């Protein structure tokens, strides 16, 4: 690591990702993200919570450099993303998006092996890794390895997506509404399995959702976004106490659901 970055890592030793005064403006002039200051600590799961269009996915794409900030800077492992080779950066970051992200022309095993293959792992090691990961996410490798994505249920597809993101052992994982398209029952099951996995792996994760219950199950901390601005950054419980109208709107959803008994 170069000395100029050493200063950063000494002052903020525990931050894996950091946003400093970051804005993102579309070429047409629409602002998707304004003056974001945010820090993701090593090993924590930060949930980005907000309505559709609040800037969650934009924030996420700034981390793996699918887009570059219009102003300010994003740092990953103490180095500005614009200084990273985007390919190297992305291969250090696992990425899970809604179920469409699996490649339809590749089998489950091949999908999981994409990044290891890009990294030129030997075939045998890729195969072992794929099967181990399938077991980790609760899928029988013998039954599922040779299947194509469209031969899987939504929940199974999502498990494969998580396994794929973990394949090359990245220190950071980004998850963009990974469970958004699942039915509520499967969704709860997979959330709890994921929670277990999280405790086992201790990875840094950034998790996008608009479901406050999910934020409570999975989040170490929650960042609430509205119209491209950060409203609150705290542990999930703090959300229920916040006076901000957007926080209260989300909190009400949560308590409503609990009171009507559909959520334990």
């Amino acid at each position: 690591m170069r000395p100029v970055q050493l200063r950063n890592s000494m002052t903020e030793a525990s931050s894996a990702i950091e946003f400093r005064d970051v804005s993102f403006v579309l070429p047409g002039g629409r602002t998707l993200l304004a003056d974001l200051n945010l820090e993701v600590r090593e090993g924590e799961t930060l949930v980005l919570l907000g309505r559709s269009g609040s800037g969650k996915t934009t924030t996420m794409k700034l981390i793996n450099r699918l887009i570059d900030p219009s102003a300010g800077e994003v740092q990953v492992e103490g180095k500005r993303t614009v200084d990273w080779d985007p390919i190297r950066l992305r291969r250090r970051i696992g990425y899970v998006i809604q179920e469409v992200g699996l490649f339809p022309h590749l089998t489950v095993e091949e999908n999981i092996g994409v990044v290891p293959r890009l990294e030129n792992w030997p075939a045998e090691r890729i195969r072992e890794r794929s099967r181990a990961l399938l077991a980790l996410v609760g899928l029988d490798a013998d039954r599922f390895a040779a299947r194509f994505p469209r031969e899987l249920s939504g929940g199974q597809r999502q498990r494969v997506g998580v396994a794929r993101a973990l394949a090359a052992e990245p220190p950071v994982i980004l998850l963009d509404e990974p469970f958004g398209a699942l039915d509520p029952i499967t969704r709860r099951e997979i959330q709890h399995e994921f929670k277990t996995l999280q405790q086992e792996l201790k990875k840094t994760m950034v998790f996008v959702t608009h479901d406050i219950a999910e934020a409570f199950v999975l989040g170490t901390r929650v960042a609430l976004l509205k119209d491209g601005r950060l409203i609150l950054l705290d542990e999930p419980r703090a959300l229920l106490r916040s006076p901000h109208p957007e926080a209260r709107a989300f909190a009400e959803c949560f308590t409503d659901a609990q009171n009507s008994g559909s959520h334990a």
Partner: protein
Amino acid sequence: MSLIEFFSRNGRELSTLTLEHLFLVAVSTGIAILIGVPLGILLTRKPGLSKPVLGFANIMQTVPSLALFGFLIPLNIYFFHVKILGGIGARTAIVALVLYALLPIIRNTFTGISNVDPAIRDAGRGMGMTDRQLLFQVELPLALGVIIAGVRVATVICVGTATIAAAIDAGGLGRYIFRGLRANDNTLILAGALPAALIALGADLALGWLERVLQAGRGMRAPSKKVFATGALALVLAIAAGYFLVGKSASAIAVGSKDFTEQAILGEIVAQAIEGNTDLQVARRFDLGGNLAHEALAAGEIDVYVEYTGTALLAILKSRPLTDPKEVLRRVKDEYARRFKLEWTEPLGFNNTFAILVRGDDARRLKLKTITDAARVSAQWRAGFGQDFMSRADGYPGFAQTYGFHFQEIREMDLSLTYRALAEKQVDLIAGNSTDGLIPRYKLAQLEDDRRYFPPYDAVPVARQDTLGKHPEVRRVLERLGGILTVEEMRQLNYAVDGDKRAPRDVARDFLKRKGMIS
């Protein structure tokens, strides 16, 4: 002759033409894929280019194929002393076919890749794929079905357009179609059209099946880089080999002909006379449509063909009509030597001009000898003329004015149909060709052009100066052909082919033997 009978008699020729046709289609489609797919990919990377490139490909498709051939023939493009473009033959045909096949391939590659779900593309990029990896591992495999659909359209276009390639001596099933059209022979037309349609149908079915398999997604893998590179290299080599082998024959002299019966016979007469009296090998490049024979001669693709003085004067030199045969020959001789370095040798002896024809019994009954005689009695007559005669500089308007004709009615129809119309008394006077074999067949009488309105169309072999310089024996053979044919003899030879359905090759051989030119 029924179609089945024709196929069983001409099985070998049919299979040769079919193979030629398949070769043209395979090579053209192959080149179009090698150009079109990378170009389509480039467009997805530089969307600004898509409008001009697709626009160009679109325009190419609207250019009539004969016009495109005519445009390509005069080109003379060399690559290290190897001619790669221009001239007659399969190579020029392939270039034209490639231009036609490009649009569907470029367009489908472009849309196929553009239509890949952006979320999938994002997933690939987010996982750290480079642009090249994204292309080969994700976009191309997913777009493959659509690209194959484009190749399918391109192939069918090529099968159809390749029939026209026969007009520039590229071979293929178009030969039957063109021969059939000229001889008004439906069996021949079908003999070319039916196999071509079957090829198109077969290619469409096979590629359609491939397309379905690939679109189903099952069993479709991104081929490994090695397989991909090997396949592409093999395709390039095969196509390059095919492209340069085409038309590479060791023969010293190439004899050409235009695309009608008389020309096929004259081409054979010239070719066999050279073969029989020299040690030279002769290649036949017959059936060249329009002015292609002249362009091929000027470009050095052929060494000699038989031209008509009047055609050279009007259609090639674009001069005013002249009527004195000696004057016309002198003019074309001088101009050709000066402008094209081509030499007019000895006239063969007959004049294939417009023949003003009436029924033989009318001529006897009304004592008609000259066109002036006919003009006096023609007030109640109906005339039948081909489209060509109605429009050309030495055609109807000047003719009617010179002789003072006022017909009751003029019927404009296909030239080949005017003879029958005259024989069946649907018209009373036509303008045919003086050497047409149908003149004796229908017992028609040709009236003398007593006011010398029509320019002479004396048939004369025209050769390249450098060829005659290199091979003086060819000049001697062509000189011996001088004055060998009268109009009556040419009519008989034409009828032997058109009426008796004999092969031009055999008719020419019998004729030369009779004249003692060959043994």
